[in-house]
């Protein structure tokens, strides 16, 4: 692989590039490690469907805003770079919001303000400033997609447990057999409320850090 990196034509999925995609899953996860984008992670994880749509929306916006900003990075005047980034992100978010309203109306109602609030999601501006402003378009695009999926993966995991334990469903389908309810099992209403999202994320962070000890703060 290192031989490839030295040649002029770097393959699209070189080791360096795939690393950009993979890192946000674990060591640089936006939610569990960088603790960014928590608000929306709490709000849209009651059911799997909105969580998946939100994950996709964020991934599309991070990917394409990184790509666009990276294309423009040499032309963007340094003094107004934050404004330019914000305009690009806001335009993409509005487009995503409009498409959801047209094609996935019920989900867009559940996501309500949180689609619009993708604009203020720290993951986006963070990646634009830290990565897209200083890297070529393709790696930037991968970095954006990676971070979007890293964010989305946590969302979907949290939503999976909240929907399963809170409503007895997965992706809207009943999965807990009637017999279990007859024995005396009840859905845990607390799982539907926001505090349990925070606790679920806490458990994920705990599990992750007990596996990757280098993530534990020294202080």
């Amino acid at each position, binding site marked *: 692989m290192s031989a490839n990196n030295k040649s002029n034509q770097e393959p699209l999925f070189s080791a360096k590039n795939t690393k950009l995609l993979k890192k946000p899953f674990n060591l640089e996860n936006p939610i569990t490690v960088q603790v960014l984008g928590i608000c929306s992670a709490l709000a849209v994880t009651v059911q799997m469907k909105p969580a998946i749509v939100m994950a996709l929306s964020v991934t599309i916006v991070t990917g394409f805003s990184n790509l666009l900003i990276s294309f423009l990075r040499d*032309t963007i005047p*340094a003094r107004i770079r934050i*404004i*330019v980034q914000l305009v690009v992100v806001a335009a993409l978010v509005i487009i995503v919001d409009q498409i959801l309203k047209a*094609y996935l*109306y019920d989900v867009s109602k559940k996501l309500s303000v949180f689609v619009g609030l993708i604009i203020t999601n720290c993951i986006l501006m963070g990646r634009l400033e830290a990565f897209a402003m200083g890297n070529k378009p393709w790696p930037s695009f991968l970095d954006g997609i990676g971070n979007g999926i890293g964010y989305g993966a946590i969302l979907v995991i949290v939503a999976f447990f909240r929907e399963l334990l809170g409503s007895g469903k997965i992706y809207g389908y009943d999965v807990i057999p009637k017999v279990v309810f007859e024995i005396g099992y009840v859905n845990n209403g607390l799982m539907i*409320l926001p505090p349990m999202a925070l606790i679920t994320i806490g458990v994920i962070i705990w599990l992750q850090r007990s596996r990757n000890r280098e993530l534990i703060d020294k202080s």
Partner: protein
Amino acid sequence: MHSNRYIIVYSTIMVILVAVSLTFVAVQLKPRQEDNIRIEKMQNILASANIATTVVNAIETYNEFITQTLVVNNKGEEIKGADAFGLDLALEIKKPVDQQQLPVFIATLEDGKKYSIFPLRGKGLWGPIWGYLSLTEDFNTIYGVTFDHKGETPGLGAEINTDIFEKPWGGKQLFDQDGIFTSITVAKGGAKPGDIHAVDAISGGTITSKGLEKMVKDCMLSYEVYIKNKGRI
């Protein structure tokens, strides 16, 4: 360092490009978005008459069951030529009482009975709340209700659109035995058993509950004359 002129030209071009692309997207998607809103309205109207629909069959079901629509004023007189479905109640309730145009939808169900459906709109804690209320043929007993909201607190005020809150409305009565409009009280601490003018409020959602009570009272009061005229026939 870029010059000021560069920055101004750069931002101008950027803003124009973004504006053009957003306008294009908005115009292209508008018909679909409006269809979605219309379908949702149809589903809500039908839901208040306890007719379940899906997004796919909403238009068909609406055309099948909603056999008549009319617009009345607060004196109970029918206003000819007005489009009941197209009326925006949010705008109507802001007008002076005697200028309001109030829609009524009439559903004929399989058993041949006609139910009158009245739209509602009011304020919750964080924003607008709205809904539909259907009356049976005696123009007094509630057949069903459906409520919705823009942004009430999940788990608290937002519970107004759940079956747990909506189901008990069926069978309640708007007028007492003397024919006086009493509306429905959304009772904090729970309605007394057998009280036909009260339903349980939502714990932790007091302001939404009270807003909803006011919404039902105010909106149905506008229809009082119409309902009384109909009820006597």
